[in-house]
């Protein structure tokens, strides 16, 4: 297990290899379908992004509501492939570290290699366990989206595996084709 701090610089990003098991700590941001649509709309209109993309990790999740006294509810990953068309547009804007679950399409993988980006995965359906690795959570942008808003999370030892690295290696193989 390799300890990684977020945000992450380019050298660290490029040093990751498919199959590496990571423990992530630091600040990450969440966003899923609806938030991605807004992020792409903002990019096209030359508006401010919801957070600084360079070095940041976006985690595809829509947490369940936090119970009193807890920072967050269950917060496992959602299926990443739905974010493919948005991610292809956001990678050139600097959003090059993504965390979700499951394989992604060929167009995304080609764009990822071109942008030297990385795609990490975490086990789906373990939202209760993962909620224990979140120290703090706050709404960062698009609060009207509820569970789909962009949240700023402070995480510690959040488990992840490198699925696609910046050099084209792919832990899933091409079973999805």
């Amino acid at each position: 297990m390799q300890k990684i701090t977020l945000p992450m610089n380019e050298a660290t990003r490029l040093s990751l290899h498919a199959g590496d098991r990571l423990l992530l700590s630091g600040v990450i941001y969440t966003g899923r379908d609806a938030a991605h649509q807004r992020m792409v709309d903002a990019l096209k209109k030359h508006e401010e992004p919801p957070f600084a993309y360079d070095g940041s990790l976006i985690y595809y999740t829509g947490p369940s509501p936090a119970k009193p006294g807890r920072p967050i509810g269950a917060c496992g990953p959602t299926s990443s492939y739905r974010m493919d068309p948005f991610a292809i547009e956001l990678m050139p804007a600097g959003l090059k570290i993504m965390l979700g679950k499951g394989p992604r399409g060929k167009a995304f993988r080609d764009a990822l290699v071109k942008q030297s980006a990385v795609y990490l995965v975490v086990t789906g359906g373990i939202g209760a366990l993962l909620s224990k690795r979140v120290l703090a959570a706050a709404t960062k942008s698009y609060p009207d989206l509820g569970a789909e808003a962009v949240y700023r999370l402070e995480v510690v030892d959040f488990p992840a595996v490198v699925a696609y690295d910046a050099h084209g290696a792919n832990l899933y193989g091409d079973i999805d084709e």
Partner: protein
Amino acid sequence: MNVIARDRLVAEVARIVEEANIDLDGKAVACLKASLLKERNELAKGILEEIVLNQEIARNERIPICQDTGVAVFFVELGNDVKLEFDLEAALNEAVAIAYTDGFLRKSMVRHPLDRVNTKDNTPAVIHVKTVMGSALRIRFAPKGAGSENMSKIAMLTPADGFAGIVKFVVDTVKAAGGRPCPPIVLGIGIGGTFEKAAVIAKEALLRELDDEAILPRDRELEEALYQAVNATNVGPMGLSGDTTCLAVKVNSYPCHIASLPVAVNIQCHAARHKELIL
């Protein structure tokens, strides 16, 4: 005559809705633990260990097993000797709204597939009601997550496709889904009936006990063949390879037209959540 009060029904249903999301059924846990003993791939073992640990944390600390607390799906069997002096569907929806709001469960329903505005209480539920003889009201509930639901498929095969055609369609569906539906999965297979009947009995198959087997010998044979074929795909936990692609296969069948062989494959993620209530 079994007269059921509305307040009691709403309270009892709200309780099983919340519990289903927090307390994974013991038979599902047993399946996961059994698969951990058989799995040979190290990464896959690590994933299965996380899944087993997660459901313990969920139960002990009352956190949902998964943040996707699903669409509320009910299968209701209404006895002819049960008297309800209220709108059953409205009462079930009220129970869902209470459980998802007070239980801090995620509200995932949008009011129209294209408007996509959240209804904010996870209603409406999807409700299937069947009338039966007797004085009992049986309510089965499953919160159905979208990750696995989105990978489900239906095919209108021809009679000539037969047993082998069904196996091929199911295996192709599982392979195409890969890691997306959060394997190890449970497969609800509906064969026969019509286009919609196959889908409904496939969903109902997912509410069967994980350690039961089909009543009809032919369906049992299909369950066994599919279990072996799916676990030979090497999709593995979360699609990252391994021996454990499915935990169980449940086949429900129904008579069908001389020209038809409908096959519905409803995929369930490893969090095979469901609860039952008899009033």
